[in-house]
C-alpha cells in the first residue's frame, strides 16, 4: 500500500495582518539572486535563486545539429531543454520528460526566439539546458529569465534580454509572483514574459478564472515587476566584469 499524502491547502492565503503566507505584500517579489558564468564547460551559463526556486541554465552553440534532419538550411534553430530534477518537488519527479516539460521547453523556445538573430547561423543550433534543482511555483518564468541571462553570457548576439513573471489572483486579490502554494490554491495565474527591445509580450499563458476587464490591470502590475527583474538581470550580467575591474583598479 503506497503512502499517499494528500495535498492540503490552507483555507486563507492571506494572514490576519493582510500579508501573504510567506510574509510578502501583494505586489512584492520573492528574493531573487542571479549569477552568471557558473558552469565552466558551457559557453554561457547562469544560476538563479528566486524564492525557493533554484535553477541552472547552460548554453552551448552555435554548433552542429544532432539529429541532422532538424537542421534548417536557411537559419539556425534554438532548442531549449527544460528538465526538473527528481528531487526538485515533494513527490519524486519521474526523470523522463513528460508533457509538462515538453510544453515548457516549447514556450521558452518561442519566447526567446524573437530576440536572437538565428538567420545569421544557418544549419546550426543553440542549445539551452535548464535544470530545475528546486521548484516552488513560477519555474517557467524563472527559467525564461535565467535562460536569457545564460544566452547573454555566452555572447550570442541578442536584441535584448527577456524577463518573465507571473501575476494572479488569490482570495479575490491581484498579486504578483505567485509561490507554489498560491499557484495551486489560488484562483488565477497569468505568467507573462517581455522582450525589452520592443516591450512586447513574448509569453502569455493563463490558468484559472478571472474577469477579462481586469487584464490591463494584471499586465500593468506585471510590467512593474518585470522592470525590477530586468534591473537585477542587468546587475548580474555586469557585476561579473565590474568586480574584476574594481579589483584591478583598487590594486594600483
Amino acid at each position, binding site marked *: 500500500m503506497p503512502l499517499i499524502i494528500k495535498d492540503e491547502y490552507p483555507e486563507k492565503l492571506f494572514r490576519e495582518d493582510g500579508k501573504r503566507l510567506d510574509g510578502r505584500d501583494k505586489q512584492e517579489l520573492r528574493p531573487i539572486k542571479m549569477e552568471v558564468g557558473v558552469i565552466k564547460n558551457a559557453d554561457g551559463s547562469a544560476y538563479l535563486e528566486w524564492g525557493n526556486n533554484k535553477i541552472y541554465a547552460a548554453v552551448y552553440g552555435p554548433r552542429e545539429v544532432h539529429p541532422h534532419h532538424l537542421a534548417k538550411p536557411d537559419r539556425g534553430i534554438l532548442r531549449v531543454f527544460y528538465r526538473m530534477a527528481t528531487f526538485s518537488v515533494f513527490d519524486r519527479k519521474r526523470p523522463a520528460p513528460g508533457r509538462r516539460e515538453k510544453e515548457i521547453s516549447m514556450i521558452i523556445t518561442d519566447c526567446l526566439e524573437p*530576440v536572437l538573430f538565428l538567420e545569421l547561423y*544557418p544549419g546550426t543550433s543553440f542549445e539551452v539546458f535548464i535544470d530545475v534543482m528546486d521548484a516552488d511555483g513560477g519555474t517557467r518564468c524563472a527559467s525564461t529569465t535565467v535562460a536569457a541571462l545564460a544566452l*547573454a553570457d555566452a555572447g550570442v548576439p541578442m536584441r*535584448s*534580454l527577456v524577463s518573465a513573471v507571473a501575476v494572479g489572483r488569490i482570495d479575490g486579490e491581484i498579486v504578483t509572483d505567485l509561490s507554489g502554494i498560491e499557484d495551486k490554491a489560488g484562483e488565477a495565474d497569468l505568467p507573462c514574459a517581455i522582450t525589452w527591445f520592443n516591450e512586447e509580450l513574448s509569453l502569455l499563458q493563463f490558468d484559472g478564472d478571472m474577469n477579462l476587464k481586469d487584464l490591463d490591470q494584471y499586465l500593468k502590475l506585471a510590467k512593474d515587476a518585470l522592470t525590477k527583474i530586468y534591473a537585477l538581470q542587468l546587475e548580474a550580467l555586469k557585476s561579473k566584469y565590474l568586480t574584476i575591474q574594481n579589483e584591478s583598479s583598487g590594486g594600483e
Partner: protein
Amino acid sequence: MEEDEEIESEELDEFEDEETSRDLVVPGEVVSEDIEHFLPGRGTILNKERTKIISLNIGLKQIKKNYINVIPLRGFYTPRPGDKVIALVLDKSPVKYVCDINAKDTAILKPKNTVKKTKMRVMRGSSQPRDDSSTDKYEIGDILIVKVISADRLNRPELTTIGKYLGKKVGGIVISIDPPKIPRVIGRNGSMIKNLKNLTNTSIFVTQNGRIWLRGEDMAHERLLIDAIRKIEREAHTVGLTDRMSVYIENEKKKRGIK
C-alpha cells in the same frame, strides 16, 4: 629552431584604443539616443522606431569617428578567409583531412593544399607516387597551423598549409581562451605578446580562433606563461593591463624562484 610570432594588424587593437570607454553594456541596453551624429557600427543595431542605438552583445562601448561600436567580451570564432588558425586533425580519409578550428563547423583540408605545386611538372612521368593525392602527410591528432582560404555561412571552411609559418607543429602546448580576448593577448602593435615573450623566455603563436601555441625552455616558464595568459583573459576589459602584467610576471618569478 627559430620561432615566429604572429602580430596582428591594427584593427585588432581595439581594446587598447583611447576611444574605447570602459562603459560596460549588455544586450538591449541603449548605447546612444543621438542618431543625428552617430551611426550604429559593429555589435549595435537601431531600434524599430530608428530613434535609439542599442547594443547586441555584452561588451565595451567604443566611439570611432561617427560610428558607435560595442566590442564584445564573450563570443565565438567565425572563420574568415585569410585567418591563420591552429587546427586539430580530427579525421582523415583518402581525399581529405577533417580539422577542428573551434568554429561551428569542422574545416576541410584537401591534400592538394598541403603540397607546393611548383615541382609537379618535373615529377611527371616518374614512377614516384604523387604526394598531393594522398593524405599520408599528417596523422589524426596532429596540431597544424593553417590558413583559411574560404569560409562563408553555408559551406564548411577550407584550409591550406602552404605558406609562411604554416604546417605541422611539433612539441609545445596549445591552450584555448575566449576568442574575443585574443586582441588583448597581442596588445597594441604586439606590445603585450613581446612583453610576455621577453619576460618568460618562451615562443608564442597566437591565432584568431582563440588557441595559443607556446613552448618555453622548461615547464616552470610554460606554467608561468599559461597563468599570465589566463590572467589577461580574466582582466581583458580593464585598463593598464600591459604594465600590470609585467609587474605580475616579475612578482611570480620571484615567488616561484625561476630566473
